[in-house]
């Protein structure tokens, strides 16, 4: 049966989520930025932005994940405790993210289950329902259609809300599709949802047709196959200041550090977000660094997303959300760089092959 929800009923939904034992996180203002925060009042939801400053990645890959606590017992014995799923992965609804953000965890899952299962990611993914809202707007940084996604794609979402033509300035009706069993279960156990099949807003299809793919990831990957030593990397990455904002705001960047916090007798081992854009990331204790230059690190980031990861898992490690461009302090546009690679691939295939 076709379902819908009206923004006037968001409070009903939020109240029933709480009763059903879910916490709801949604886009909200946080000082000068927007991010996904626990939402109790519908009025705190901020759904007007094309994309939040920060992605909801932290609910799958915590910025700071306690993976172990240790405690000295007696003189030399040590007790280790792994936090329980209930502690770090409470039932959660990520409400109102964009389809590009919904796709993030689905893509990252490949590496988090590669031979060894990362329980922290998997438990969090298992406890979390994603209700994405299709886009009625895009900006010049958006490029989801270049990476096999779309403003209304279902990848990674458990529930997809499609804005309908039935909207006023402040209120909006959505058609609702349960994509996974988990999404269906959440809808069945909460309130605010109604029968109905409101007409899809024409803006979605306008965005979709205006957002033409600006590069072909297959061609980019082909160029990268032989492009490791190409001089283009040196010039293309000159303006990068190596701040790592692109990696922290990225919904698919998942690299991490493992450190101990605490003393010798008691403390916590944590997994922290790390960034391949930092020179310390690969620095050996001996002082040797396999990626000493900014251009080496930038190459690593593009190679990882558009060649290494696709080679391993047949998935592009990018959702085209465009945050890496939007928040880059020196306006380095990943989309623009990929377009350049697309042109290099088309223009000089022989030279590229020669390196």
């Amino acid at each position: 049966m076709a379902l819908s929800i009206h923004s006037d009923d968001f409070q009903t939904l939020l109240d029933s989520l709480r009763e059903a034992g879910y916490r709801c996180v949604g886009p909200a203002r946080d000082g000068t930025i927007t991010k996904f925060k626990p939402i109790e009042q519908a009025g705190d939801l901020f759904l007007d932005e094309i994309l939040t400053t920060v992605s909801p990645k932290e609910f799958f890959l915590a910025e700071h994940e306690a993976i172990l606590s240790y405690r000295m017992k007696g003189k030399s014995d040590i007790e280790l405790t792994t936090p329980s799923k209930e502690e770090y992965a409470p039932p959660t609804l990520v409400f109102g993210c964009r389809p590009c953000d919904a796709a993030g965890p689905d893509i990252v899952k490949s590496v988090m289950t590669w031979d060894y299962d990362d329980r922290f990611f998997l438990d969090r993914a298992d406890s979390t329902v994603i209700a994405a809202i299709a886009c009625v707007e895009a900006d010049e940084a958006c490029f989801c259609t270049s990476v096999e996604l779309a403003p209304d794609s279902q990848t990674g979402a458990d529930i997809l809300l499609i804005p309908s033509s039935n909207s006023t300035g402040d209120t909006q009706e959505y058609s609702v599709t349960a994509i996974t069993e988990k999404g269906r279960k959440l809808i069945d156990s909460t309130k605010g949802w109604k029968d109905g099949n409101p007409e899809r807003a024409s803006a979605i299809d306008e965005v979709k047709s205006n957002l033409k793919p600006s590069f072909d990831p297959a061609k980019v990957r082909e160029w990268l196959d032989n492009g490791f030593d190409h001089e283009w990397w040196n010039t293309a990455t000159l303006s990068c200041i190596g701040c790592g904002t692109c990696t922290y705001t990225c919904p698919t960047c998942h690299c991490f550090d493992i450190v101990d916090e605490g003393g010798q007798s008691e403390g916590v081992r944590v997994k922290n977000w790390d960034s391949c854009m930092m020179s310390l990331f690969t620095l050996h204790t001996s002082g040797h660094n396999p990626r000493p230059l900014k251009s080496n690190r930038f190459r690593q980031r593009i190679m990882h997303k558009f060649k290494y990861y696709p080679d391993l898992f047949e998935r592009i490690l990018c959702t085209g959300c465009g945050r890496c461009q939007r928040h880059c302090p020196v306006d380095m546009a990943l989309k623009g760089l990929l377009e350049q690679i697309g042109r290099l691939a088309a223009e000089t295939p022989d030279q590229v092959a020669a390196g």
Partner: protein
Amino acid sequence: MENIYCPSLLKIQDLTWETPDTTSFRLTFNDNSEREEFFSLYKVGQFGEFSAFGHGESTFCVASPPTRKDYIECTFRAVGRNTKALQALNEGDTIGFRGPYGNSFPIDDWKGKNILFIAGGIALPPLRAVILNVLDRRSEFADVTIVYGARTVSDLVYKMELQEWEARNDVNIVTTVDPGGETEDWTGKIGFVPTVLDEVAPSNENTIALICGPPIMIKFTFPVLDKLGFSKNQIFTTLENRMKCGLGKCGRCNVGGTYVCKDGPVFRADVLAELPAEY
């Protein structure tokens, strides 16, 4: 679900000072079922994550062979925070260990072959596991030659074992120190590893060469091996890029698209030659 980041607890049974800044641990598993699980998986050349709680984890190759199943050993120089903290521990203290990870030396393919080990300084420990493994299964292999050098006599690790290997008549071992690094009673060679290797001139015929050492030693040893007629598919080495997880997830040890923690740390030289210079 298992916590792949949770280490086993190991007790320091024996602590040996190899050099003024390098220590070896002999470690026993607190939990016997974890020991059994480890040895059901462990193949020579694999590595692990060793931790002093409160300080972090460090990646070392396991320095003891899978033929010795009561303990594992590791040898490390105190350079960073965790290695310094490990070195400050005493016999009887407990450390964390995760592993075994990565691939291994395919020594079962080398039966009947001559094995040549070439190592420099602190890079002997990864090869020491293979040396002991080969010696524990001595009859399966032909000639065993070891060329080992360090900057000075005091920088040589496993001094007791070097003597034991020297005393055997089925091992040909040559030790050397850099010019100026000798002592008055030094009876080994004086010279750099590549030069000494050239003098020893082991035959390339039916031989597998394992090489591990600082980049400068590797760089000058390859031409010597080439001159001696070794092809790249006869030569193996082990890489140690910086790692955190050891499990293919933390994203930093890759050389191009090759993950040292999963596709390595052991590489055949012809495979290594195809990789970009990112190690």
